[in-house]
């Protein structure tokens, strides 16, 4: 790797494509390691601006748990430095159980997370009602994961891009083509660097069609400001047991109260729908579900709704590492709904590979090789 003095013909040591939360975290991490970074972004609407900013440890697989736990811990370590306008809070997640099956899932999850060293506890129905009195009565209980949090990702990304301004340069430009470590802008100009990082979320396939990424459309709605209704981020365990299983359109209850007092309501999932417009029926279904859990929501005013696209890989884990057929092109894509959560971990896993330093986690489950084999594609 070169340093700033020997950039000869290079735009930087690393060009990062995409200034969302993942690109920003990668740029920040690489800059911390002493590299000169150029971030190229064309300001298209993307997942960082659209998402809920829920810092949440999921455990569908060992790899998901490992990356999530490591990443959320990294966010908490950053917290003292994070500016106020990033609205970071460690408010914890409550996973709500409506029935015996979901309570069993809460217990399984409790065991798995505890074993991994996460602070979490099971709440009975009565304890849950006490902790969150706005929830409907009759819930069986919940799993509380104390270390989870929330974050306003657009400002967090901006902060990460600006805080090492001597090493991180930003350029507003559209990238039209990527060939290994070379990048062609829409203006026709070519840029090159020893390494190029592709971190453009759902748009990455436009530049690299062999990426196995699928768009999952989601809806969100936010209310006017209200006095405190809930303290934790509330998510139904049906999120994992039933609601978002399978390939049909689905909704699941997922609500947080922002530091502004606004209730932020999700979630929906639709496959193969690339229309960014709000789908009225889907929005209605999502809100009906939210009212099932928080009956008081019905009387509150919603003020904005919007959609976003999660960029999902076949196994739900991101692709972090060098592209097997394009030396010099590094991937940080496929984070599905967890881009904000795992941005910190992604950045460190990527930097460790690029700089050949010991990685903090086993790299294997996140390597692009698991989808992009040795055989060159047509």
């Amino acid at each position: 790797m070169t340093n700033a003095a020997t950039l000869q013909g290079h735009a930087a040591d690393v060009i990062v494509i995409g200034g969302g939360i993942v690109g920003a975290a990668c740029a920040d991490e690489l800059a911390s390691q002493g590299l000169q970074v150029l971030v190229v972004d064309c300001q298209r609407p993307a997942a960082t601006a659209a998402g809920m900013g829920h810092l949440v440890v999921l455990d569908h697989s060992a790899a998901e748990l490992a990356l999530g736990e490591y990443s959320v811990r990294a966010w908490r370590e950053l917290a003292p430095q994070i500016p106020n306008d990033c609205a970071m809070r460690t408010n914890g997640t409550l996973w709500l159980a409506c029935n015996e099956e979901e309570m069993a899932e809460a217990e399984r999850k409790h065991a798995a997370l505890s074993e991994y060293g996460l602070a979490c506890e099971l709440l009975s129905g009565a304890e849950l009602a006490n902790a969150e009195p706005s929830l409907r009565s009759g819930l069986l209980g919940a799993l509380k994961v104390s270390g989870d949090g929330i974050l306003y990702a657009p400002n967090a990304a901006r902060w990460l891009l600006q805080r090492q301004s001597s090493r991180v340069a930003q350029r507003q430009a559209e990238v039209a083509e990527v060939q290994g470590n070379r990048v062609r802008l829409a203006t026709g100009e070519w840029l090159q660097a020893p390494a190029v990082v592709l971190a453009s979320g759902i748009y990455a396939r436009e530049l690299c069609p062999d990426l196995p990424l699928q768009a999952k459309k989601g809806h969100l709605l936010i209310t006017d400001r209200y006095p405190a209704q809930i303290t934790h981020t509330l998510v139904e365990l049906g999120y994992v047991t039933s609601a978002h299983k399978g390939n049909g359109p689905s909704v699941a209850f997922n609500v947080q109260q922002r530091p502004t007092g606004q209730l932020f309501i999700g979630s929906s999932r639709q496959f193969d729908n690339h229309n960014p417009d709000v789908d009225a029926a889907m929005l209605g279904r999502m809100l009906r579900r939210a009212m099932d859990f928080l009956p008081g929501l019905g009387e509150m005013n919603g003020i904005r709704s919007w959609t976003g696209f999660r960029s999902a890989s076949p196994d739900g884990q991101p692709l972090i590492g060098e592209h097997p057929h394009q030396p010099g092109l590094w991937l940080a894509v496929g984070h599905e709904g967890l881009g904000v959560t795992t941005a910190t971990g992604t950045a460190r896993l990527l930097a460790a590979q690029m700089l050949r330093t010991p990685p903090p986690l086993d790299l294997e489950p996140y390597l692009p090789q698991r989808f992009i084999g040795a055989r060159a594609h047509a």
Partner: protein
Amino acid sequence: MPELSIDGQPFRFAQGTTVAAALMSSGDRCSRTSVSGQRRAPLCGMGICQECRVSIDGLRRLACQTICRDGMQVETQP
């Protein structure tokens, strides 16, 4: 004369008066406190600016598009 309550204080009104007009004629004549702590009063008078949104009988509504009714409970604190 019919009467409603604004933040617990009784207010008598003429039939047909809007809640916005009532708010601007009583107390500190304001409708809400802004995000940074400024007191604000109705601005557009026609349902656009949202400065006059208050709680009316428990629901957040626009004072300028609501007619006063006897016994109505109006709360200006968000």
